[in-house]
């Protein structure tokens, strides 16, 4: 048997689960319509889930980008101080972040594609459900019992099949998102507390070194100013404590 026939059997089996064995075929129209509305709700919720997943990735990308920007600034500051090694270190860490950013970008594209597909599915289903609502009243009114049996049965099977299809599309999107959710969860943990601080903590190391260098030069400058103020004399050890003594009484 070919792929198409087998797929048809599988879809049919799923669809049969959606069909009610109503005594009156007219009644099955209403039952089916109720199920259609439920299916629509599910697809809409699924769209919302995927959108949430997308937002989460966007937030992570923003955080990573901020860290990358910070490292870029630090590299610049290090160069200004003439510390090329430190600048190199900052840029190396920035490159590692850029790689993760690229990975997030890929995930974002995939999630966006799934989101669009589900939105299309929801729209298509909505159109069909609306059309069914209109048609079911006509069918109830115009068909004789004998006609209703086949015509209504076919219409209900037909739209139920569309719901099965939508259900499979939804499941498919969910499966794809699940893997990404797991990775996003890991990334959240990294960003919050864990191993990404391997990258961000050293960032603070870099900042500490920059601050230290900056402090040292400030201290040097202040020391020089102080020396000038105290005079050109050779400062004996006691003179070093002079500012403190000077501060205390006043």
């Amino acid at each position, binding site marked *: 048997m*070919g*792929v198409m026939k087998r797929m048809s059997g*599988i879809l049919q089996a*799923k669809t049969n689960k959606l069909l009610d064995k109503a005594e009156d075929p007219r009644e099955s129209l209403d039952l089916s319509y109720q199920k259609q509305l439920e299916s629509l709700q599910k697809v809409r919720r699924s769209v919302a889930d995927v959108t949430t997943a997308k937002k989460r990735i966007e937030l992570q990308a923003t955080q990573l980008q901020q860290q990358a920007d910070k490292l870029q600034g630090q590299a610049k500051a290090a160069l200004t101080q003439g510390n090329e090694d430190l600048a190199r270190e900052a840029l190396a860490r920035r490159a590692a972040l850029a790689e993760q950013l690229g990975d997030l970008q890929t995930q974002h594209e995939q999630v966006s594609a799934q989101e669009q597909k589900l939105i299309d599915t929801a729209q298509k289903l909505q*159109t069909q459900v609306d059309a*069914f609502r209109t048609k079911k009243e006509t069918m109830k009114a115009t068909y004789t019992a004998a006609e209703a049996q086949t015509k209504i049965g076919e219409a209900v099977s*037909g739209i139920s*099949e569309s719901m099965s*299809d939508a259900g499979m*599309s939804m499941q498919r999107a969910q499966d794809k998102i699940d893997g990404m959710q797991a990775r996003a969860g890991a990334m959240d943990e990294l960003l919050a507390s864990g191993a990404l601080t391997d990258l961000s903590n050293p960032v603070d190391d870099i900042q500490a070194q920059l601050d230290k260098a900056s402090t040292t030069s400030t201290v040097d400058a202040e020391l020089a100013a102080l020396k000038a103020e105290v005079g050109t004399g050779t400062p004996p050890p006691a003179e070093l404590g002079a500012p403190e003594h000077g501060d205390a009484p006043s």
Partner: protein
Amino acid sequence: MIVRILGEGQFAVADTERAALDAMDDTLMAAVDSGDEDVFATALAALASEVRRAGTPLADDAFAPSDLVVPFADATLDETKGLLAQPDDGGAADQS
């Protein structure tokens, strides 16, 4: 006859196209069995586009069961195998 492409919709296709579609379907089935991802992707894309080319999209208010069903046009080999492995008694339908 009516052909559905999963995730896409239904198409009314003339019965005279059946033989051509079946031949393409055989190629697809062989690709599934051989496990060659590239051959599979090509065969699936060819089948889906032939259905689109030869068929007319069904109107939104035409509710009819399909005679044949094509997997998601961009499905991977593994995904298709997974779909085909699903029980015919609809065990997975609870999720939909």
